[in-house]
């Protein structure tokens, strides 16, 4: 029941076995990552993501959160270990299959990464690029895709802005568009890398509520990396925490509090201060 490398932390969690866990959509085992000849950025990380759960990923800057996210989509060089997404072993996939896999993983970014000059609707439609078909060669999307994009904009509450350029929206609105784009992929898992770091507190709660609602209603796991502990404690079902590339915490949110997560920021980094705000 223990997943901890630090002597100061003892945190309960689900047991981690050596193979894929039944029911898990994402399974990471003994993951090690280093860039070139540098030190290990991730060291022996195990992670399971289950349908319908929202998992908060915590850790200070440089702890390996973003690298872990990148590993789940094949954007980071995996030194050893296994990463399975929807039953597919990511480390052995060819480039074309890797694109298929990326298409099944919705991603939400800190800076939204929308194409500012394109309309909100087109930005959402880009989520369907992978399966857009021949019509897309001339810049088109099928009516079915367009209908779905509008439905998703309804869902995130921003359909009335469908025709405006994305750059004219507020940060919170842009992040909603980015979430709709991720959902347009019909994802089997959603990864959100610090999705509220650029938003005010009210917007942060709204966006995290939306992500959690998506996880529950669509039955997909949502992994959200966060810096602010109260947000993680309020908007997640489970919390996993990294420090220096090692996973120190993995436990249901209900079993945790800010004091027990202090171990993640024990180095005295700036994020520790921010985390307690």
């Amino acid at each position, binding site marked *: 029941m223990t997943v901890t490398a630090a002597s100061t932390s003892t945190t309960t969690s689900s047991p981690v076995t050596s193979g894929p866990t039944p029911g898990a959509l994402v399974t990471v085992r003994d993951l090690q990552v280093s860039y070139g000849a540098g030190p290990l950025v991730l060291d022996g990380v195990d992670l399971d993501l289950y349908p319908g759960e929202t998992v908060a990923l915590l850790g200070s800057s440089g702890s390996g959160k973003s690298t872990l996210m990148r590993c789940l989509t094949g*954007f980071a060089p995996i030194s050893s270990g296994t990463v399975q997404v929807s039953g597919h072993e990511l480390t052995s996939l060819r480039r074309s299959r890797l694109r*298929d896999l990326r298409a099944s*993983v919705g991603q939400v970014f800190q*800076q939204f990464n929308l*194409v500012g000059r394109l309309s909100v609707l*087109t930005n959402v439609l*880009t989520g369907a*690029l*992978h399966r857009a078909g021949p019509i*897309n060669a001339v810049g088109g999307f099928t009516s079915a895709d367009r209908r779905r994009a509008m439905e998703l904009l309804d869902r995130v509450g921003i359909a009335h802005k469908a025709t405006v350029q994305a750059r004219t929206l507020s940060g919170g609105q842009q992040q909603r568009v980015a979430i709709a784009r991720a959902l347009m992929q019909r994802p089997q898992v959603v990864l959100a890398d610090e999705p509220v770091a650029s938003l005010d507190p009210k917007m942060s709660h709204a966006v995290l509520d939306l992500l959690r609602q998506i996880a529950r209603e669509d039955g997909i796991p949502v992994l959200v990396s966060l810096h602010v502990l109260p947000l993680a404690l309020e908007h997640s079902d489970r919390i996993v925490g990294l420090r220096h590339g090692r996973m120190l915490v993995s436990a249901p949110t209900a079993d945790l509090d800010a004091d027990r997560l202090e171990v993640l920021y024990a180095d005295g980094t700036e994020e520790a201060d921010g985390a307690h705000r």
Partner: protein
Amino acid sequence: MPTAERIRREHSATALDAAERARLERAFTVPRARFLLGVPVALAILYWSMVGADFDVAKLGEGAVNMGDFLTRLFPPSWDKLDVIVAQLVETLQMAIVGSVLGAVLSLFMAFGAASNIAPGWVYYPCRWTMNVIRSLPDLVFALMFVSAVGLGPFAGILAMTVGSVGSIGKVFAEAMESVDTGPVTAMEAVGASRRQVVQYGVLPQAGPLLVSYSLLLFEGNVRGATILGMVGAGGIGLELTTAMKMYDYGHLSAIVICIIVLVTVIDQASAVIRRKIT
């Protein structure tokens, strides 16, 4: 550890050295040594160039009388052959339009190959080298080459303009594509988009305004350039201009110059309006 103490400890580890901090806090910053050394070197290079190129302001003063005489002879302009001037200007404009459109389209394709964030290395370097070679040759050389290939007339001028455009505008197109925000590109890759789709949805919409702006600049340049290409028989108003100069027909020359100025000004203003609309 208390927050204040933690901040102090972090700060002491990353603080500027005292001399640098004092320099930054002075009301007037003393320039760095490399700046103090660089300015004299730059001035020395400028002086060397002026001497080497016989740059002489006094000589310009002495020749001012002749220049004034030349300008006096340009007035009044003669509008007797206005119909010829207008016909030649229209031909010049047509050459510039066709040359610019073809040049911009070819440049766009060349730029895809010459943008490091789009093309692989084996495509990137040949494209860059090709553009460098084209850029190092003056348009007049291309004009002479195409005149010998397709004969006198505007077609040779259009071909010269088109090829010349690839060298100049292809490079700035490629650099516009390289300078786009990487965020949307990352997002396109993340949704599993193909390379073509990444360019279509992640790169071009961002670079679009710059590409259009540079294309308009290319068009303006080609209108002016077309007047020169005519001098070697590659069509346009240039031939009429050269003939008027050789015949000492100053009134006609003046009318041609005034018409060119009007055309270029109108195009410049129209381009400015379009640029404002798209950016």
